[in-house]
């Protein structure tokens, strides 16, 4: 039980973020992903991360693209050896973040990658951190489901769709939004070009000579 409580605590701690810093981190990742020679996203993806806030509100949101369908991954345009390793025909990436700027806190996170496999069947990957506020409509806040194990606050859905049962919710360590995007792309395009932490680099950092 304690480890699940600790994980929940780590997710609460994770929420303490400055929205502009998060946005800059995300933009750096999106920029890298949209620059050749290995561009997974259309160029200037970093400028399509849109900041928006309602008037007289401390809430600010960041969304990737105002179009509701998200950003298409340029899978068919990847150079050949990379393209051959991709098991997806098409995929869309969407990023939805909501912050309370007055207390520098991430309230809600939804990062999704979904599309079709090569055989045309659907595939979806979604990382959620539910809104933490407890309201009349959502008295549980970010404590969804039965508990901190089966429904960790920061969790990832994997499946053909998000509705197909059994609904899998993988508990995630406290990853920042930019890291989540990096991880998702690394799952969709599992090649060295899209691995942000290759093992030799990990080794070098663990044991600097």
């Amino acid at each position, binding site marked *: 039980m304690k480890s699940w409580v600790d994980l929940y605590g780590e997710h609460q701690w994770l929420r303490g973020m400055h929205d502009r810093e998060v946005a800059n981190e995300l933009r750096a990742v999106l920029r890298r992903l949209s620059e050749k020679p290995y561009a997974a996203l259309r160029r200037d993806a970093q400028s*399509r991360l849109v900041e928006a806030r309602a008037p007289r509100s401390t809430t600010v949101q960041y969304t990737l693209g105002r179009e509701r*369908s998200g950003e298409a991954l340029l899978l068919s345009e990847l150079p050949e050896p990379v393209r051959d390793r991709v098991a997806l025909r098409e995929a*869309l990436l969407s990023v939805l973040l909501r912050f309370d700027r007055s207390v520098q806190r991430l309230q809600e996170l939804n990062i999704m990658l979904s599309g079709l496999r090569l055989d045309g069947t659907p595939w979806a990957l*979604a990382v959620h951190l539910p809104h933490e506020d407890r309201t009349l409509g959502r008295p549980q806040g970010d404590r969804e489901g039965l508990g901190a194990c089966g429904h960790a606050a920061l969790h990832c859905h994997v499946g053909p769709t998000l509705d197909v049962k059994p609904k899998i919710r993988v508990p995630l360590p406290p990853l920042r939004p930019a890291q989540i995007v990096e991880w998702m792309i690394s799952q969709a395009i599992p090649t060295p070009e899209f691995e942000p932490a290759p093992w030799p680099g990990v080794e070098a950092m663990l044991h600097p000579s």
Partner: protein
Amino acid sequence: MREPGVAIAGAIARDEGGLAFITCPDLDLRDWLVREVESLVPSDARPFRTSSVAEALGEPNRMALIIPNDEAEVVRDLDACRDQALEPPRTQPIVLFLLRDGDGHHTLALEAPSAWSWAGGSDVDPEALAELDMDAEREAFTAEVGTTPEEWLVPWRSQDVPRTQENFTRAFWAMTLE
């Protein structure tokens, strides 16, 4: 409806070797906006920070981010030296960060028509653009979906709407607009 990031990126990219202004509400946000621009521009722009027009002009192949100590003087210098950016032709723009309604904008309006003209249309206030036009957004939502945000959220909250990417996005915007 203009998006702040797109407006900044477009203003900077529009004229090869041109001039863009980024308007900042205060000095703290100015620092953040400089970092935002650094995160937005292509890697080969090799941006560098300076407070001097001469230094900016001296690096025609790097994006100069001018963060002035004296806005009025920098604007005057830019106005007078503007065409020096044509010879040799710059390949990267100059981006000047000015306080909203500050000395720089006042000097542009009063004394510096050339600099003002060069940056015409590339003069962005990202904080102002980030504020949603709620009426327009609600209208766009309703036109696209056929119901108001509040009406759309009812079946969503009772789990009667499929959990697709599109619906998660709609729910997110509906909660912003309700």
